[in-house]
């Protein structure tokens, strides 16, 4: 179970997943309670043209900067568009998502290696993560955790009761921008490893699964992180054994996401069983009394 990770590229992939788990667990909870799943999805798509432009300008090293600029730009645009309800959150998000994604597709389709480039941008390359990428992800993770730690309480109050947050003196617009920028940074941190499409799974699925077993944000954040670690470890192992032992090509990032979804389904079944058992115990208690 440990041996495959002694191979350098597997060890680096696991290290990248650990870093992503540490940030995606807590950020996912805020995304869930602020009902920003669609915004996160939009961010993953709008980063795409940034990734392409960065790649065209600076090769693989340019992807990071391109993604960062595109993500921060989108975070600001989305926060401004949804301010004061000028547009509904869904409509404005959809407009920005489709516009930016189309630009990305147009740009990438001009290259001769169109198909392989598109695949790597959309689904990432977890097994080719370099030490430099891990260092960049670690720096971003430290930054994200620092700004999250400072703002998490205020963001939680804003998500639960925006009127009370305003009455307490918080600027809701800045809190919204703050969270959108954090989500944007998470997308940038994860995009090269798991791609623009699958990164949303790391944000949404663990938090949604954790919500099934807890009603405490801190417990949900830790559960989410634990789920990503578990799915990351088992997903990489499954991908290794499928490829090395059985000659079956199993994309590692997709394996991780599939296991995350499996974890969500297991917790869903468990929570349904628990609810039914509790209801049965209560009805029996009523009959006896």
């Amino acid at each position, binding site marked *: 179970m440990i041996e495959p990770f002694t191979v350098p590229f597997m060890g680096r992939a696991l290290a990248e997943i650990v870093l992503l788990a540490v940030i995606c667990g807590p950020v996912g*909870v805020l995304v869930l*309670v602020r009902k920003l799943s669609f915004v996160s999805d939009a961010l993953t798509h709008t980063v795409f043209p940034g990734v392409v432009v960065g790649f065209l300008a600076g090769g693989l090293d340019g992807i990071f900067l391109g993604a960062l600029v595109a993500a921060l730009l989108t975070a600001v645009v989305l926060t401004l568009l949804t301010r*004061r309800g000028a547009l509904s959150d869904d409509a404005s998000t959809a407009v920005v998502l489709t516009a930016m994604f189309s630009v990305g597709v147009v740009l990438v389709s001009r290259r001769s290696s169109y198909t392989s480039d598109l695949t790597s941008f959309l689904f990432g390359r977890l097994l080719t993560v370099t030490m430099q990428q891990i260092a960049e992800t670690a720096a971003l993770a430290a930054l994200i955790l620092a700004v999250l730690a*400072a*703002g998490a*309480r*205020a963001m*939680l*109050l804003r*998500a*639960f*009761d925006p*009127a*009370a947050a*305003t*009455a*307490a*003196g*918080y600027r809701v617009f800045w809190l919204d921008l703050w969270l959108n920028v954090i989500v944007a940074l998470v997308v940038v941190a994860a995009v090269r490893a798991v791609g623009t499409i699958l990164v949303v799974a790391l944000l949404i699925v663990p938090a949604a699964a954790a*919500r099934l077993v*807890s*009603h*405490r*944000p801190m417990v*949900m954040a830790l559960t989410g992180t634990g789920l990503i670690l578990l799915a990351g470890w088992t997903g990489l192992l499954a991908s290794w054994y499928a490829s090395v032992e059985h000659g079956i090509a199993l994309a590692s990032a997709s394996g991780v996401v599939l296991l995350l979804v499996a974890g969500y389904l297991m917790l869903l079944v468990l929570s349904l069983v628990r609810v039914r058992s509790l209801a049965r115990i209560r009805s029996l208690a009523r009959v006896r009394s």
Partner: protein
Amino acid sequence: MTALHYTGVSAGYRGAPVVAGVDLEVGPGRKLALVGPNGAGKSTLIKSAVGLAEVLAGTARIFGRSPARARELCGYVPQVGDLDADFPVTAGQVVLMGRYRRIGWFRPTGAADRRAAREALGQVGLGEQAGRPFGLLSGGQRQRVLLARAIVAEPRLLLLDEPFNGVDAVSQDAILSVLRELTAAGAALVLSTHDARLAGDFADSVCLIDKTAP
């Protein structure tokens, strides 16, 4: 100093007045009830005192300051129906939210904050419910939790928006009892209700509001 002093105030949203020409004065330890039909502007008036609605004309002063500069002196209790019952948070955590401003951005939540939250929850009669999910409480209990969240910040002016809507008799009595204790200790109080009899029995003064905006 007067806790709340409104002179010829028009209040509303995005430049459009909902209520106009209001004069109000509430001193420390006094209870004012705003009474009127739905849509008359009671909630808007309450919200204007904490910056949730705009003061479009007239002069609004909270302890001699503009509403935007007096937020730390005010406790605001919203209508419980406006909140998401499925939000993952316990009753104790909701009360603790009332301390967030005081805690600041960088200091971790301390033992004193948690103790204050427990005491506030005990004060509204829900000391045993701290660990329960907020959404699993009854409407009346949720309203009491929101009251506890406001009083944990030790406000000098308490503003409650329809605190008795959909609230059972036990919770209503508990809320009234806590409000009497707070005003006896010197806090000023403004609440809105459409129950004129309750307002008359409880408050020191009653302000009747009808549709006044053009």
